[in-house]
């Protein structure tokens, strides 16, 4: 097991958690390990060849039973690189954004590091089972984080609901995975199915399971991943969880962990069950329009800042699903870009709302107001991050959204002069969603930050340097990716072309 960037990325947080067991100052350890993660991510990015195939493959056989062989394998390719970078940057930002007077700080940092390790692991795992395991590893500390350090009247109920909801989602996903393995074994007749993703994809390409099996298994995968991401009817846990969660946990979960569902759907769903994806396309289109329009309008109506941010995060998932529904190389590259952009911007927004809560004690938009005049840094940060999240060109989200819209326009349908294919109507609705996102984000910015001043007394005083650094890092990355997305987009698109082979038109 030579020392490779992937080991650094996953090892650093896990070692950090171990170090936290001894009486080591928590913040120092957390900063150290997330810093190391970023170094590992940059190292991986630097040495990523243009070919985009799976790099740094390493792993060992972990289990062989019941007809499946599970290998604990790590690897990164062009498509998973953006997600890994996102994980490391948001992890560092989350640690920095943690207030110094956090009760039981060591345990809190341990939770953060575990989430980071789990998320990074799930993006680096080249094995279907480990993809699932790492995600579950990341989910547990999220529940602890929300339950213990959360605030708000219905904290316990919300934690309970979130746990049960996400567990249900995971179970459906597990059913999907098992169905997938079973269908493949039935179709290919091979005795032992290796759950290595590359092997699975090749096996599925050789012996594609029957249409009915593909439809059922993809359905389970879609509902499972959808619940974890917040697909329309299965999204109700997200806004409530973020409204109650402490800022760093919300940053990490909304920013990074929610992308696991989309990443998984593309990595497993589209690659192994292409005709399953075709069967579900119309249904997915309807659901994601629910995401964009229904949640968009619901976001306009929210009274609490964190609720609004939660709804906006769920709404942007609609765009990611549009990219997945299109399945074209361009659309999926857009999904990678928008995931990075959305991750960074929503993390920043939660950091700001965390600070607003700390300084004013409430997040009710009706009572807040005029914070920009008393805390200019907060006002500036929220404006920039808000504008980024509604797709201001020059910041990362726009590059993603424009690629998704172009990628989905006319996918799976001819574009000559006949009637527009279904997906194009989806694009029209998604474009309308841009207006909705502008409405609710600017309404919130005006209500909380502009104007003379709210009924709540806001404690002025200097903003801690660590918090400024966290927001500065996020905005910096948004600008870098936004100004020059060619680097990430080429890596992602070549990775996808290699991974989806003939599937992505």
């Amino acid at each position, binding site marked *: 097991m030579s020392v490779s960037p992937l080991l650094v990325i996953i090892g650093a947080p896990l070692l950090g958690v171990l170090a936290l067991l001894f009486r080591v100052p928590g913040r120092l350890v957390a900063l150290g390990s997330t810093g190391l993660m970023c170094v590992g991510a940059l190292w991986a990015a630097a040495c990523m060849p243009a070919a985009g195939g799976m790099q740094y493959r390493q792993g060992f056989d972990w289990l062989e039973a019941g007809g499946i062989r599970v290998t604990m394998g790590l690897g990164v390719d062009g498509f998973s690189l953006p997600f890994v970078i996102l994980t490391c940057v948001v992890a560092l930002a989350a640690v920095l954004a943690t207030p110094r007077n956090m009760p039981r700080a060591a345990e809190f940092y341990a939770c953060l590091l575990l989430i980071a390790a789990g998320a990074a692991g799930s993006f680096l795992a080249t094995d279907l089972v480990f993809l699932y395991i790492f995600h579950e590893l990341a989910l547990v500390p999220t529940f602890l984080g929300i339950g213990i350090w959360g605030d708000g009247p219905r904290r316990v109920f919300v934690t309970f609901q979130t746990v*049960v909801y996400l567990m249900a989602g995971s179970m459906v996903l597990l059913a999907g995975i098992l169905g997938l393995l079973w269908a493949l074994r039935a179709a290919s007749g091979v005795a032992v199915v290796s759950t290595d993703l590359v092997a699975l994809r090749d096996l599925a390409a050789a012996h594609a399971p029957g249409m009915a099996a593909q439809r059922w298994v993809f359905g389970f995968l879609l509902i499972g991943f959808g619940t974890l991401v917040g697909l329309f*009817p299965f*999204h*109700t*846990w997200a806004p409530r969880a973020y409204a109650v969660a402490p800022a760093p946990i919300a940053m990490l979960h909304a920013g990074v962990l929610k992308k696991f569902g989309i990443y998984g759907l593309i990595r497993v769903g589209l690659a192994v069950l292409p005709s399953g994806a075709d069967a579900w396309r119309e249904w997915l289109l309807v659901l994601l329009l629910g995401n964009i*329009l*229904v*949640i968009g*309008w*619901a976001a*306009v*109506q*929210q009274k609490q800042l964190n609720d609004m941010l939660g709804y906006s995060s769920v709404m942007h998932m609609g765009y990611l699903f549009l990219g997945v529904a299109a399945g074209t*190389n*361009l659309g999926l*590259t*857009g999904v990678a870009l928008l995931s990075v952009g959305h991750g960074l911007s929503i993390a920043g927004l939660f950091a700001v709302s965390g600070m607003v809560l700390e300084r004013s004690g409430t997040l009710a938009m009706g009572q807040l107001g*005029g914070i920009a*005049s008393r805390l200019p840094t907060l*006002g500036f940060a929220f*404006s920039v991050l808000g*504008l980024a999240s509604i*797709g*201001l*060109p*020059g910041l990362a989200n*726009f*590059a993603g959204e*424009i*690629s998704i*819209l*172009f*990628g989905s*326009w*006319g996918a799976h349908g001819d*574009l*000559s*002069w006949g009637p527009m294919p279904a997906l*194009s109507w989806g*694009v029209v609705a998604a*474009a*309308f969603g*841009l*207006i909705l996102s*502008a*409405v609710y984000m*600017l*309404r919130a910015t*005006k209500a909380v*930050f*502009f*104007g*003379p001043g709210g009924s709540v007394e806001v404690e002025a005083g200097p903003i801690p340097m660590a918090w400024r650094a966290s927001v500065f890092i996020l905005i910096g990355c948004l600008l870098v990716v936004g100004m020059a*997305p*060619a680097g990430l*987009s*080429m890596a992602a*698109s070549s990775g*996808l*072309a290699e991974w989806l082979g003939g599937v992505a038109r």
Partner: protein
Amino acid sequence: MPGALWWLLLLLPIGSALLITAVLRPYRVASAAVSVFSAGACFMLAVWGVASGAAAPEPVAWLRASDWVVMVAMMLDPLAEVMLLVVTGVGFVIHVFSLGYMSDDPGRSRFFGGLSLFMFSMTGIVVSGNLVMTFIFWELVGVSSYLLIGFWFERPSAAAAANKAFIVNRIGDFGFLLGILAVWGTLGDLGFGPLRAKIEAGALDTAPWLPVFLMALGLFCGAVGKSAQVPLHVWLPDAMEGPTPVSALIHAATMVAAGVYFLCRVFFLIEMSVPALDVIAWTGGATALVAALIAVRQDDIKRVLAYSTVSQLGYMVMAVGLAAPAAAMFHLCTHAFFKALLFLAAGSVIHALHHQQDIWKMGGLRTAMPVTFWTFAAGALALAGCPGLSGFFSKEAILEAAHETASPLLWLGLLTAFLTAFYMSRLAMVAFFGEGRERRAREAKESPAVMVVPLVVLAVLSVVGGGLGIYGVLRGEAAAADAEGHGWLVPALSFLVFAAGVGTGAWLYRDRERDPLRLGALRDKLYFDEVYGATVVAANGRLAQFWDWFDHFVISSLFVRGTGLVAGGVGNACRFLQGVGASGYAFLFAAGAALLLLWAAVR
């Protein structure tokens, strides 16, 4: 000039904007200097580049997927060069003016940061070489106008106006984006050059009329949003909440003209659909008339100029609709000069009267602020269409185009010209003639040199603008020759209308304390805001409430909590099985045995 230097046109302003926001925020003088320097340098670069005829630099790939690429490319043809000179020139002049105007404002560095961001985005639109790049800078311009309108964000009205501007622009961008997607879907390319080549090669000839019409309409949507045409014009008058240099630069000279410039840029595409041209022409005409009517009855000096801008933009869009893009661009250039001048003059008046904007509180400024008055008069006459000044030539060119196609728009244009002359003379009489109605008006003093010099420069440009041969450059030298022999009808009519307008205005408003005309409807902006409020905004609110209720009660309460309750219920129901006591157990045991026996017997 080497081609690569063109990139400086974009890098300088964005560099200064980032520098100011990141580093120079606390140092107000330094940030102002950096911003003015970058505006001046851009203007110099533009002049040097246009003079030396430098070629556009190599395009750079901004976003690339497997086969789809968005290039950052520059396209510098006569149309772009003229617009570039106007944008950078007027921009620089207004930067200098802002030094004085914003001198006592605490947030000055933030203001200049916003201005630099705006210059970056506006220059981007002018030099853009493909549709997506235009869309990118389109949104950036919208954001910079949002930031600058909401500059004094403490004022709720300013914050609301900024939101309104951005959202209405976003609605326009929605249509614009769909237009771009349609073009890309059917023609498969985004760059203006390749698109023009494909169309000239007959790509659209076989196409049915509806898609081409919708495509052209989509692109026009962008212009409607940005250039404040009738349905989406409501944001421009509210944008006056921003500082006056912002109104001058963004909401008079450059940004609002971006829509017209873009229409001229993609004219080769729009003209393929005749019904689209008619829609554009009539939208322009309607906007011109409606805005002129409303302007007649406005009391705030900046609101009058704002509606006048909307009206003139209507003129330009009408010209494009009448298949005369060159006339539209000519009017755009002259309008940029005298409208910027009028706004700056208004700014100078407001600055002198300590932020008093109601014209009925002014008066007698002719003697108190002579230079401002004379420059204002030059601009007003140019706008009203006084023969010999720039406004006359450009407006006459548009009316000429209407006359050629014998469309009823000619008479509508003349009526609007009359109204324009009328409200400008009203404004001049009430604000500048007679004696000061208020203490502040009587004690007004002339503005400092740094504000007056730009006024003079713009006044000179307004006066001589018509003769600079801009029109010739725009239409290409060949067509310049036959421009003159157009017959006397249109020039005579436009002079007649000008004289009538100024005359009635002067006669009606000499030494008045109140506005003699009632026309309440016009004062209340023809109730556009109330209508929108009752329909669009209310509908959005109700939809939001419904979907929030739906999401909260139907999905999260009914389905999610519902399944929870069902599970609890079933659990409860089965509980009786366990807790019946000893004899109950015996009974169940016996019942089970009986069932087994029965099953065994029956099978």
